[in-house]
């Protein structure tokens, strides 16, 4: 998910906590949260009600925009390619793709017989138009930065109706994975001006109504190329306040809470209440502790190394989020991706202490910034501060208003806790967050050697050795990087117990198979 969409000011009332108090009295909820949603055969048809926080009153159905109404996108559009659970690029509108020998030319073949919701058949011209729209500076698409370094709008060619060719300036063997971003949904040629309201795509649902930051509905697309979806209809509602969203679920007004990572106490209330339950999206939240490499505290690599050796990710996982996730050990690649480097760095507070002494920074004392922006940031800050105390590091927890957290603290203060959503393909993840000078490089570290390894990986057309290079890059980030990854957290999603086959990972939501149990059961 776009960070912009979740980075919202919410009234962080004690409501959920109160609700917890109110309901736990009625019966002790189970201590163990269900791992995944119920699977089974859903009843055909039905209407699913989804509550979501709106990105802003300026949100749009144009997926290329930084203010897209995210939940609608997967229901109404398709991309050329998408990612599977393990991070592999798999077909969506393109059925096959191939490159020339040095990976500078990529040719995609489109699925036959696909039509947009307005009846117009999908052709290569639509793909070319969509890519040009994403690259258009006026669109200000978050994905433009990644794509525009490799090619311009003129480098996309519609070879024939069903063939598109991209000519890249530099070799990139991972290029298709960069088109899996949720900004790359394919829209009809010439629709850039209207797509934000019409939402005409090729997806499993057609847009019925939509109002920015309000309510909207989509209905099943009977002609969907991958078979008609189970549900007849999905209704979306905007509820900004997290507690109000949870109340809407508890009172059965909605069936699913999108983009809502519930804190543990609320999750227990929801699990323990009649008619509602939770599902976990494994490792969906990637928590980071960026050390600002340009600050006087962390310009020294010895200090950065000490800050890592001083803590144990697995213990932090237990303390901060009751084990609902995985230890990160400062490797930013999520554990479910095949490309993750196996094993992890040591935990050695004694060596951390020695390193600090060597750097002349023993007894390091600085604030660590946190905010109620996301429920787990503060628990992580507290758990981290507690652990590094053993290495003689004294951190003061400093909580600031969630309003200005990402404008006044992020990339400005030497030490803070932040998060991203996982779901980026490995190449994009490493290049976007860790390459020197990238606008998302939150630690501000420039490492020319890392950039070279990343370039070499892109140019390598052999899958085995390319993966080895990406793993080298991970090792460099673990050893020398300035952006720590303490843990990956499961996103805890509240849903009605009537919902079956809910599946979500990365930026993928399975809108085709999700359904409702027959109401008699």
């Amino acid at each position: 998910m776009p960070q912009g969409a979740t980075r919202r000011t919410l009234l962080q009332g004690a409501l959920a906590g109160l609700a917890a108090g109110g309901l736990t009295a009625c019966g002790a909820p189970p201590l163990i949260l269900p791992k995944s949603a119920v699977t089974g055969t859903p009843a055909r048809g039905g209407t699913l009600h989804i509550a979501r926080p709106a990105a802003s009153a300026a949100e749009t159905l144009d997926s290329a925009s930084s203010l897209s109404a995210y939940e609608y996108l997967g229901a109404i559009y398709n991309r050329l390619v998408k990612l599977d659970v393990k991070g592999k690029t798999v077909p969506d509108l393109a059925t096959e793709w191939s490159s020339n020998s040095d990976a500078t030319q990529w040719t995609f073949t489109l699925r036959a017989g696909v039509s947009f919701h307005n009846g117009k058949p999908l052709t290569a011209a639509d793909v070319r138009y969509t890519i040009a729209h994403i690259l258009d500076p006026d669109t200000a698409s978050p994905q433009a930065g990644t794509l525009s370094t490799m090619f311009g709008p003129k480098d996309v060619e519609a070879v024939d109706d069903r063939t598109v060719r991209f000519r890249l300036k530099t070799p990139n063997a991972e290029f298709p994975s960069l088109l899996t971003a949720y900004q790359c949904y394919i829209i009809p040629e010439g629709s850039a001006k209207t797509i934000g309201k019409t939402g005409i795509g090729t997806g499993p649902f057609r847009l019925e109504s939509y109002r920015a930051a309000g309510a909207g509905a989509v209905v099943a697309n009977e002609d969907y190329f991958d078979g008609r979806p189970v549900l007849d209809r999905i209704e979306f509602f905007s509820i900004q306040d997290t507690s109000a969203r949870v109340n809407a679920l508890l009172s059965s007004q909605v069936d699913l809470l999108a983009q809502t990572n519930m804190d543990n106490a609320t999750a227990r209330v929801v699990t323990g209440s009649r008619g509602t339950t939770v599902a976990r999206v494994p490792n969906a939240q990637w928590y980071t502790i960026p050390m600002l490499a340009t600050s006087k505290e962390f310009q020294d690599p010895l200090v950065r190394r000490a800050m890592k050796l001083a803590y144990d990710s697995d213990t932090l996982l237990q303390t901060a989020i009751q084990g609902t996730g995985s230890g990160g050990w400062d490797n930013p690649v999520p554990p479910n991706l095949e490309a993750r480097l196996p094993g992890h760095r040591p935990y050695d507070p004694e060596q951390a202490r020695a390193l600090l002494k060597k750097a002349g920074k023993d007894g390091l004392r600085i604030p660590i910034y946190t905010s109620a922006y996301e429920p787990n940031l503060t628990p992580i800050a507290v758990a981290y501060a507690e652990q590094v105390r053993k290495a003689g590091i004294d951190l003061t927890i400093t909580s600031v208003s969630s309003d200005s957290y990402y404008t006044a603290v992020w990339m400005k203060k030497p030490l803070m806790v932040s998060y991203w959503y996982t779901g980026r393909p490995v190449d994009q993840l490493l290049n976007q967050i860790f390459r020197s000078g990238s606008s998302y490089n939150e630690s501000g570290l420039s490492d020319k050697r890392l950039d070279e390894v990343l370039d070499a990986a892109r140019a390598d057309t052999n899958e085995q050795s390319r993966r080895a290079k990406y793993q080298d890059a991970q090792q460099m980030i673990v050893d020398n990087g300035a952006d720590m990854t303490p843990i990956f957290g499961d996103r805890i999603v509240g849903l009605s117990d009537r919902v079956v086959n809910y599946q979500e990972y990365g930026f993928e939501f399975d809108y085709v198979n999700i359904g409702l149990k027959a109401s008699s059961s």
Partner: protein
Amino acid sequence: MIYVARRLLASVVTLFLASFFVFFAVQALPGDVAEQLLGQNATPEAVATLRAQLGLDQSVWVRYFDWLSSAVHGDLGTSLVSGESVAETLSTAFGHTLLIAIPAMIIGVTISVLLGVWAAARRGTKVDNTVSVLTLITMSIPEFVVATVLIIVFAIVIPIFPAVVLQGPSATFSDLLPALWLPIVTLVISMVAYIIRSTRSSTIDGLTTEYATAAELKGVKRRVVLFKHVLPTAMLPVLPVISINVAWLLGGVVVTETVFNYPGLGKLMIDSVSTRDLPVLQAIALLSACVYVLVNLAADLLALLLDPRQRTSRRRSSRPRPKPALEAKTSEVPT
């Protein structure tokens, strides 16, 4: 009449000052609207361009007088975020707020004045004690707790009312109708205590006056003494308490509206703060200021009607306005 003219003039000056403070307070909010709109990976050039487009690069005084003169003509500008007319957005939200505020006001004032008089008339009895304890309890419970308890009981455990409004700003009256009741009850509960307590204490004062005693000794029925002789005078110190509560209700009740996801003025305010939608924010603050000034003016004029002394003694003492009772809930003024 001079008094009325003077009050009107004072109101205009107050509004002018309010507009001044509103504008500059909003300017002082942390965060830059251009950065906010463009998101975290905005380039400095893009931010500069947008600032120029929005006129943010002009002098703050120029912007203030431009804004004020169009506001006087009813043009509140367009929202920086949605691009819609601020006046339209604001009137929709204000309409929704009125839907809960007016019933809450009517029910709340009626109940609390009656209960206050009743408790005063039965001073020291069980009735009085019960009312006192209940008002103390409701005074000490914050409204978001009241709202949450109501939701748990009447929306989750016994599902008769919806917990939240789902449709957002485009909600129609029939969408809102079932969802109105819990917010109304929440508002009534959080406002009555103050009015009950001030009504009770000033009615007790009224009952001990010589004219009340004289009336009673003459054999006038107690009910008549209470409602005809005591209450009009006793209402004088209560009026400011009522007016502050009414202004608070009309100005948008942020917490209650947020808990119920109710698309009124308070929720619009919260959303505009988080998106740094300055034109909307300024317009809301200005509207709230107007509401406060108008309601207070109305209360003063009503006091004038109720109190013959204020009409005759005008020439000597300048403005003997009734002092707000101690319970005035200043803490509830939306900020």
